[in-house]
Structures are given as structure tokens and as C-alpha cells.
């Protein structure tokens, strides 16, 4: 391995998500409830991290913290090198629109926008003002997810699988290095879920994206480079099956 290769290796191995001793408490009816208890996890660039665990284990809280939607009660959260705990609300919004793509279990497309408008909206939020270029990119993304003929449909006119594919196109729209997916196959049948899993694996393979996925789907877990198992807000175990395989 020459020096150039080493440099590439170092760059690839940069941490996309770095949690050190992160805790999160909520006040419920005036009483503190611990959602996360001193968690340390890290996801390297280009990896797929699966976060698994029963409902209420704290999976969505982890995604909220990565996206900067919530701040930790304790510990350090660094995402793509940015310390989110000390960033302003405005900076966090700018960070999200430029660096993070979201895929939700319930798709959460904007109900009044067509499929392609939902994708294009993400480009506008990222500040891309060249509408000609945005339209061209949108068409490419719609083609990538195989929905060119459904581009002019509203979310309510699309099936669950189609909506999730639009959500994936939307997550790719601002070309983010990091994609967060909250149980992306949770609402889909086996066959459609498999299509979504394949599509997400392409994001890593072809586009080099980092994925953090909360899931109960074994196919998603199999695809992961690292698996964090949460139990009652704490980190139960960490597996790196990809490393074992390699």
C-alpha cells in the first residue's frame, strides 16, 4: 500500500458520527425520564450502521441527536466533524439541509407537493437556486428510484413502496454525505421492503453515502457494517459483521 492509498484509507475511515458518553433525559409530567444512558458509538464515512432494539429503547432519540434536532443532556455529539451540542438552531438547520438526508418509516412526504416537487424541495432547502439544474437532477433521481412515470402524482396517490422510493430520492436530492433512515421498511410488505433495502444498499455502493438506519428488518441488519443494539436506553452490544467477514 503506497502513501496515496494510505491517505485514501484515512479519509474513508474519518468518523461520520461520533458519540462519546451521550445521555439524554426528557421531562415527562415533571419527572426526568432517561432515554439514553451514556452511549458511545461511532460510524465511519461510507459505512452502514444499523441501530436495533425494542420499541422505547432510544433508537429514534439517537437519530434526533445525529440530526441535531435535539441536544444531548450529557456527552459529545460530533457529526461530520461538527460539534452539534454547541451549534445554533440556524446553523443546525443549514447543516441538516446540506449534509443529511432523511428517510422515515411513514415516508412523511409533504402532502400538497407532487413526488418530483418533494424531491426538488430538498434542493431548494439546501439553497440550490438554479431551477433548470434542479429539475434535471430531480428527473435523474426519479429515474434512479424508478418513478419517472409517477413524478406528477401526489403522495396520497402513491402506494407505500412508491412513497418510500420518493422519500429515498428526496434524501438524495441535496447529495448529502449522511443519510438517516428511521425504520424505512417498517410499513412495507416483504417484497417492497426488499426493493427498498436494495435501493439503500446502492446508496452506499454506488454513491458512497454513510447510512444510519434504525430497523427491525433482518435484511437491513445483514447489510450493515456495524450494528448497535440498544436496550432500555443503554448500549447492549456492538457488532461489526462486515469486519468479521472481511
Amino acid at each position: 500500500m503506497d502513501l496515496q492509498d494510505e491517505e485514501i484509507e484515512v479519509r474513508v475511515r474519518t468518523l461520520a458520527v461520533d458519540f462519546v458518553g451521550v445521555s439524554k433525559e426528557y421531562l415527562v409530567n415533571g419527572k426526568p425520564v432517561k432515554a439514553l444512558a451514556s452511549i458511545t458509538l461511532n460510524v465511519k464515512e461510507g459505512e452502514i450502521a444499523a441501530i436495533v432494539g425494542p420499541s422505547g429503547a432510544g433508537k429514534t432519540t439517537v437519530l434526533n441527536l445525529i440530526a441535531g434536532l435535539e441536544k444531548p443532556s450529557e456527552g459529545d455529539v460530533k457529526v461530520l466533524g461538527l460539534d452539534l451540542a454547541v451549534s445554533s438552531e440556524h446553523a443546525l438547520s443549514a447543516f441538516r439541509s446540506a449534509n443529511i438526508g432523511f428517510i422515515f418509516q411513514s415516508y412523511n412526504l409533504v402532502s400538497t407537493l407532487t413526488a418530483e416537487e418533494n424531491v426538488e424541495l430538498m434542493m431548494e432547502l439546501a439553497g440550490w437556486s438554479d431551477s433548470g439544474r434542479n429539475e434535471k437532477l430531480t428527473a435523474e433521481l426519479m429515474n434512479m428510484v424508478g418513478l419517472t412515470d409517477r413524478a406528477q402524482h401526489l403522495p396520497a396517490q402513491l402506494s407505500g413502496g412508491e412513497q418510500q422510493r420518493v422519500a429515498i430520492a428526496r434524501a438524495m436530492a441535496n447529495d448529502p454525505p449522511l443519510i438517516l433512515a428511521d425504520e424505512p421498511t417498517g410499513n412495507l410488505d416483504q417484497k417492497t421492503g426488499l426493493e427498498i433495502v436494495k435501493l439503500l444498499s446502492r446508496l452506499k455502493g454506488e454513491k458512497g453515502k454513510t447510512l444510519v438506519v434504525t430497523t427491525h428488518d433482518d435484511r437491513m441488519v445483514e447489510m450493515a457494517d456495524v450494528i448497535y443494539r440498544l436496550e432500555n436506553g443503554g448500549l447492549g452490544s456492538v457488532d461489526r459483521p462486515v469486519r468479521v467477514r472481511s
Partner: protein
Amino acid sequence: MGVWEALIGPLGFAAKSLRRRGFHSYLAFLGLTLTVATTTFLLLIGQDLAARLGIDSSMRSTFGISWLILAYLVLALALISIVGLLSSSYLVSSMINQRMRDIGVIKAAGALPRRLLSYVTFEAFVVIFSSCLVGALSALLIYASWSWPSISLYKQVGPVPNTGATVLIVVPLISFLLCYVVASVRVRRIVGSSSVNAISRQLSNLDLKSLGKPLRIKRLGSAFNLATRSMSRDRGFNRTLLSVGLCVFLSMVVLSGALVSADTSASYVTRAMPPHILIVANSNIYNQYVTLGKLFSRTTPVPSVNYLNQSYIITPQNASAFRAIPGVETVDTRLITMTSITGYVKAHFASNQDTGENINTQIIPEVETGTTQALIVGIDASNAIGEWYTSDGFLQSNDAQYTMIAGDSVVGNIVQMPLNLSQVSAFNFRYDIKSALVDPLNAGRVLYAPVQTVQGNLGVNGYNVLLLKVNNDPAASSAVSQLASSHGLVVGSQDPILNSNLAFLNATWSYIFLVPILALALTCGILLSYLATNFSRRFNDYVVLKILGANVWYRLKLLIWESWGVLAISMLIAIPGAWAVSIFFLVPDPSVSVADLELSTLVSTLALTSVSLATATIYSRRLGLTTVKDLKP
């Protein structure tokens, strides 16, 4: 908590459902309560004002002006009732629509439609009944604590027969019945539709026709373009636009109608008694004329005077001498006297068509309509100072000798409609009534006739009052005073009479302006409810945008465009429409002050805009607290 949880049947369903829906239940209850309370309170205030002003103006004012004031009040209260009822039914409809998905889920789970119908209807009944009850009680409390005793009108008129109890029962009752009917129909429709439609309600709220190339204005930014797409595609927004537009329109009719009516009533008085006019008469007649002129605004008794006393008569030669003074532009020579008049409806033919082709004609004999004391003013039509508001014009030089114009306070009793069939007997002569006019002189109990005819009837060769229009040259006024003094006459300005009458009108309208101001407050409350309902309905979309990276400013701009956009479009249609109605349909021969209309538009625009901006800001701040967990499946 245990008590609620233990309830079963419709009451248990309603209690649990309302508790679980928390914020949305509270919002529906609050919006409905506020609407019912404000509408009831406004109608309570309005009927009290109408009763007091009715009594007050029957002692003063004129029939025409009283009619204008009371007609405005009745119209305003009717429009406020419509706004209140419209808003209540819209809020109930929105409340039921928010339950559409839950109803679909419960039905899909196997609930019997009839039982589901009764349970959901009972839940709506609980909200509607409690809102109407609390609204009525709140209105009563505010009304009872209203500081009437500190208001001079209350002191002047004292206790009045109050119909408050009727308003207090009728308004909440009608609100309740209407809301309940709307809720029942809506629930029946949802329960009757398929569960799938009810569950996937999103599509039914969208207008698919407006898909296609959306409006895109680059300069106004992405938030504006997103807002226009949402507004054009969301049927809920269209319904809101219609409701808000109608409420703004009706409120603006109430507001601009008050201004136009106030300006018009003042113009009627000013046209009858123009400013900068000199009154020349013997001191006794002068004082009497001033008293008669101020009867519009005061209830002082009119002393008995022999108007035709020879020492009070100004000869035609003396009148001509005034006319000859340089700077005197017009001399209005009048012979006034108070006398008993009797009204008649002339004998005439009346035709009516029976069920077939036959037309039956019969003679209606003459009818006497009554006798009263009235001021007769003999006037030279060609030199009359005054541009009265009349129904069919003032006296003309080519009118028949025995023609009269009736003051508005004798119309409707002594003088009856149609005027061409009316006659008045004065000085034992019959006069035909040509027209009616609004005149504050003797509080409208006045009749104008050609001065030569009156002189002939009374055997008087001269006048007892001269009204002079003089230019601004002080020398002319001085010459008038000198000439009057040399003939034992006094000179005074008509302005104090006019000012007294206008002050009375201003005071009266200042009480009435409370109604449009409160109507505007009601519209602001309704707008707040509408926007809150819409924002709540679309909240999930806003949360998605926040999570995707829309910053605070983008979210605020989006909410402002969506709220203010609805308002701006509503106002753009409603305000010119309200102006048109107020100017062209509300009062005859209106007088419009552009400054007043601008002021009313500015005030209402500022108030409503503030509400829309405040709502957008509140929801923007609420959005700031949301996370992925707040997204609804």
C-alpha cells in the same frame, strides 16, 4: 381521572376521546366558546344601544336620521349574527373533519355504524353544548360588568325595557342548534362513507385539478412558491379562504357602513343648515329660530311666540336693502309660523287584478291621517339657502302654488306614502305634498311652501327671518350688522346651531362605533381560530420541513405566506366589496369621506395582519420544539 375512565357508553367515549385529543379538543372548545361569547355579547350591547338610542332620538333628532341610525344598527347586528353563526358552523365542521380518520379506524375495527354515529355525535354534542353554555355565561358576565353607568347615554336615558334575556337565550340556542345540525350531518356523512376513504382522508382534502405546472416566482423565494402550491391544492384552504373572506367582508360592511352612515347623517344636517350663514331677524324671532334649529340636539321646550307680530315682519324693501349690500351673495327670505296641520290621503282609484283577466277598479275615499303642530316655512325657492336631501327634489319656481315639501318627522304619520296622494291642510288651505326632506329645523316637524302662497294665506306682506350668504369680506358682515341694527334686527351666525346638531350626531355615533370595533375584534378572533385550525391540520408537513432542514426564517416565511396569503386574498376581495355595498346600497345619497374609508381599511388591515403574523409566529415557535417523534404516522 378515575371517574372519567370508569364511564361507559356515549359519555365515556366522549370523555376519553376528548381527554386523549387534549390540545385539539381544547382548541375546538375555545374557538367555539369565544365565537358564541363574542356574538352574544355584541348582540346584547347592540340591542341595548338600539333601545337607548331609539328612546333618545325619538325625543330629539328627526325621523330620517333616527331611521338611518337604527337601520344601521339592525343591519350591523344581523351581519354580526351571520358572521358568528358562519364561524361557529365552520369550526364545528373542522372539528369533525379532524376526527375523520379516527372514525374510519373505529368503523374499520367493527363498530356498528349506528352506535358509532351516536357516540361521535354525542362527543360533538358535549363540545358544542359546553361551548354554547360557557359562551352565553361569559357574555352575560362581561355584559353585566360593562360600565354603562359611566356612559352619559345611560344617564340621559336611564333604564330601558331590556330584551337582553331574549338575546341571551336565542343566540346561544341558535348557535347550538346550527352547530349540532352541522356536526350531525358531517358525522353521518363520514360514518356513511367507506372506511378506506375516511382513513385516507388526505386525498379527499386535495384538489387534483390544480396539479401541473405550479406558480413559481423566483424573487419571492421557495417559501412563497411552496405556500402558493399548498394553498391552491388544499381544499381546506379554499374553504378557509371563503369563510375568512365572507367574515372580513361582513365585518368591513359593518365598519365602513358605520363611517358612511355617520358621514351621511352629518351631511344631511349640514346640507340643510350650511355653515357660514347669517340669520337676520327680530331678536324674539331670532331666539325662537335658534331654539327651533337646536331642537334636533336638545329637548328644550319651544316657547310660544306670535310669529306674525307686525313688529317682527321685515318688509320686502328692507330685504332688498340687504341684497344690495356688496358681498351679500344670497338672501333667503322666509316667513315662518307654527300652526296646526291636518294630513290627508286624497281620494283615488285603486285597481287590483282578480284571479282571472278582470281588473277591478274602485274609488278609495279621502282619509284624514291626523293633526299636529308643525312649523310652516314660506320660502323663495329660487334663493333658498340649503341643499336638503330630498326624496323628489325641493320646491321649483314652476311648482303649483299650493305645493309643500314635508320634513321627515311628519312623513309616515301626517304625510303618508306615496307622496303624490298626500295633502296637508294649513291655514284652511290644501297643499299637495311634492317631496320629503331631512331637516333638523323643529326636529323635522316642518313643511316648506312657496313664500308668496304663505304670505297670501296669512295676509302678511313681508318675512320674519332672513338667511344671508355673505362672502368672506369682513366689511360685508359689518354692513349687514349696521343695516340690521338700523331696522331693529339682530344678526347671528347659523354655525352654533349647526355645531350643536353635529356634536349631538357625533356623540350618538361614538356610542355606535363600539359595535364595528367589537365586530372587528370578533373577526380577529375568528381569523385566529381559522388559522389555528388550518395550521394544526398541516402541522405534520411543517414538522417534516423542519426535520429536513428548513430553518427558522424559512418556516416563519412559509407560515406567514400561508396565513397572510389567505388574509390578503380575502381582504383584496372583501374590502372593495364592502366599500361598494356601504357606498351604493346602505344609505341614500351617501356622503363618503375618503380619509375615513382609508382609516377603516388601515385599522382593519393592521388588526387582521397582526393576528395572522402572531398566529404564524406562535406556530413557528411551536415548530421549533418539535422532533422526529412528533411526526404522525
